[in-house]
């Protein structure tokens, strides 16, 4: 940069002074702080080596695919990184991927790390977890979903070493058992989010132990943990009553009315509940839940709950005023009568996402009432409803909300609504 540049409104400095020589590092940093988009911040780094060094030093988040040597270089250049994303693609053929040796480098060099994403890093083992437990004591969030080789041994080491752990994702870590949950309760009292989807060895004992020490849990996902039942979930409701916001119990067939009643008794702030596949749940407990959590419940997943009928559904629709997502697929007992109560209600419902697929007793009449009251609908799944088809809807002259995507026969991709 050799061309002279005028600094300020008409008040020129001595001719030939470069703006880059005048501005201090702190001034450049305050300029960088005002750049909001990632792209702008990257462009900032393209100006010259000095600006690049400043931008690198300020960088908080990195996503990389790198071996040990490159990781060490990244750690040296980006000294303030708190979030590192090394997650891999789902594809089976990726080789070699992130290894324990890479994790050793991360543990030793990225000392300020708070968030580490290793999902689908299928090659890592307990050895890598031991390194992380040893080196990253400030780690708050770890995602090792689908890292199938991990066992209690490695993950317990992480629990022991990372006392401030808040978010832990262990989806499909099939070797995980109650032993780890006990370890978490002893070492990680600040745990807020725990995903154990597909960890089929988990039992009620483990869950009970977990909430003995971890009483600030906001999100618990034990989907497909078929050995978890009413005992464990009731204890979760009691111990984490003020913090619990999201509870996912997809296909936990042993969960029944007692769990739902416990949630109604203790968890007034519950926002998301998925009991899809919990076939023993019946109307009575759901009515209690609607009464207790009517002001907080936003997402309710009840597909495959074959005992659910109009009795509870009408209560839910009447009392859960902020409900945004509802899934009652395959609830065969539900009829148009469940929606009749809505017809007389003044208010419009806030429902955005509704799945009533495989409900053989709902007709265009019921659908008409729903459409009348749910003007914010964005996605509607009507597949396999024998009385509802595009033709039938056109004949009944139903008015769909403007932005609503309607799935009659299964060609649309489904938006992700936490169900």
């Amino acid at each position, binding site marked *: 940069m050799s061309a002279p540049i005028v600094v300020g409104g008409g008040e020129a400095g001595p001719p030939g002074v470069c703006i880059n020589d005048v501005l201090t590092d702190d001034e450049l940093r305050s300029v960088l702080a005002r750049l909001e988009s990632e792209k702008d911040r990257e462009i900032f780094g393209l100006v010259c080596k000095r600006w690049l060094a400043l931008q690198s030093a300020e960088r908080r988040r990195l996503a990389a695919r790198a071996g040990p040597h490159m990781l060490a270089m990244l750690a040296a250049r980006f000294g303030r990184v708190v979030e590192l994303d090394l997650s891999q693609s789902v594809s089976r053929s990726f080789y070699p991927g992130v290894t324990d040796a890479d994790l050793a480098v991360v543990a030793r060099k990225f000392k300020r790390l708070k968030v580490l994403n290793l999902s689908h890093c299928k090659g890592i083992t307990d050895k890598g977890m031991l390194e992380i437990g040893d080196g990253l004591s400030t780690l708050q969030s770890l995602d090792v979903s689908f890292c199938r080789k991990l066992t209690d041994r490695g993950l317990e080491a992480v629990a022991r070493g990372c006392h401030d752990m808040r978010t832990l994702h262990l989806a499909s870590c099939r070797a995980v058992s109650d032993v780890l949950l006990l370890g978490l309760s002893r070492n990680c009292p600040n745990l807020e989010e725990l995903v154990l989807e597909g960890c089929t060895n988990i039992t009620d004992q483990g869950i009970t132990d977990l909430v003995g020490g971890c009483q600030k849990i906001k999100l618990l996902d034990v989907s497909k943990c078929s050995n978890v039942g009413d005992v464990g979930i009731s204890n979760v409701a009691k111990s984490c009553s003020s913090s619990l916001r999201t509870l996912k119990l997809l296909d936990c067939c042993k969960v029944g009315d007692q769990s739902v009643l416990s949630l109604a008794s203790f968890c007034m702030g519950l926002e998301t509940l998925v009991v899809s596949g919990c076939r023993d749940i019946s109307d009575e407990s759901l009515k209690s839940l609607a009464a207790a959590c009517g002001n907080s419940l936003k997402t309710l997943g009840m*597909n*495959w709950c074959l005992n659910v009928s109009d009795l509870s559904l009408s209560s839910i629709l009447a009392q859960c005023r902020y409900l945004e997502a509802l899934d009652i697929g395959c609830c065969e007992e539900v009829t148009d009568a469940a929606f009749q109560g809505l017809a007389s209600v003044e208010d419009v419902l806030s429902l955005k996402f509704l799945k009533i697929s495989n409900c053989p007793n709902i007709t265009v009449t019921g659908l008409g009432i729903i459409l009348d009251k749910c003007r914010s609908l964005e996605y509607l799944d009507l597949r396999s409803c024998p009385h509802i088809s595009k033709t039938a809807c056109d004949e009944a002259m139903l008015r769909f909300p403007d932005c609503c995507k309607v799935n009659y026969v*299964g060609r649309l991709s489904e938006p992700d609504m936490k169900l």
Partner: protein
Amino acid sequence: MEGFVGPRVYSCYNCRNHVCLHDDIISKDFQGVNGRAFLFSHAVNIVVGALEDRRLRTGLHTVGDISCADCHEVLGWKYERAFEASQKYKEGKFIFEKVKIVKENW
């Protein structure tokens, strides 16, 4: 190479894209629309279609069609969820119909 034995690969009958391995077969006892079908633990180079709840002979399931990633031919389906406990073993696994796959040089 003479005598070299590699993995026994099945390909899409339409475009010969590799889709599954013989060693991943769990059962040969399934019936599809077009006849016999096999249950595989893994599949590659396929696209899973929209998931639907369906009442099959063995009970309520969530399934999605699988099609060849290259030529888009439907080759079978994937079991995503199963209602009956005895059918849970199929979750996450793939059905390829016998007429839709061919042995790749073995």
